[in-house]
């Protein structure tokens, strides 16, 4: 169980580009991420020329799902609300 958790941490680091805080002995840490996850994120972005802003930032919320294949690839789709403007159903694929 502990090894699985460590593997998952490394997998999340790969997906989201975070700085690793733990190392794994797993031969294929990607195998831990195998399945479909729903996710939501909120924050402040810097893009968008005409969106309303808070200071220099545009607030956003995203809602979506990822399907991980256990081999380092994931696909999914998400909706983005960028400063009150909906950007619906953006499909993505990461190889």
């Amino acid at each position, binding site marked *: 169980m502990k090894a*699985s*958790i460590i593997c*998952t*941490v490394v997998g*999340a680091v790969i*997906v*989201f*580009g*975070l700085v690793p805080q733990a190392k794994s002995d797993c031969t294929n840490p990607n195998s831990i991420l195998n*399945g*479909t*996850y*729903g*996710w*939501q*994120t*909120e*924050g*402040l*972005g*810097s*893009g968008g020329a005409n969106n*309303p*802003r*808070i*200071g220099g*930032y545009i*607030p*956003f*919320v*995203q*809602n*979506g*799902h*990822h399907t991980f294949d256990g081999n380092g690839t994931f696909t999914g789709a998400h*909706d983005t*609300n960028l*400063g*009150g*403007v*909906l950007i*619906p159903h953006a499909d993505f694929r990461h190889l």
Partner: protein
Amino acid sequence: MITSGGQEIKFVSASTGGVGFGTLRPVAAAPCSTATLSGNAYGYSSHGLVGAGPGNGYPRVGGFIPFTDAGQITFAADGSVSGTDNQNFGGVVTPGLPIAGTYTVNSDCTGSTTMTIAGVDQSWNLVILQGAEQINFLATPSGVVWGGTLTKE
């Protein structure tokens, strides 16, 4: 960061030029249908921003009026939703706002609601999570930045 015995992954965005954070949780087992939510009641608390027009008198953060909500929503077998929303809009508290509308569920466990809250049009896109214990929602009307999570009662 792994939490809840591996059932949640917390993350922070690594994209340059912006800041963001969030949570991944396992999605409900497909195929989903209306029956996945039928008869379930959910509670929620959330926060958001409204990019309102000029002259409404509310204090603002940038171009937005902040708000918070807490409430309860029930998904009925006939495809309807009902509930109550308690709102703090820019510092003005309004409890007991009625929620009424309809919902749909797709086989991939996404869905949507079309409803009114105190007579004001509102709609959410949904992602149903494991066991339908939680539902992530994103508000879709123009001018509103709002998302949150419904938790099964």
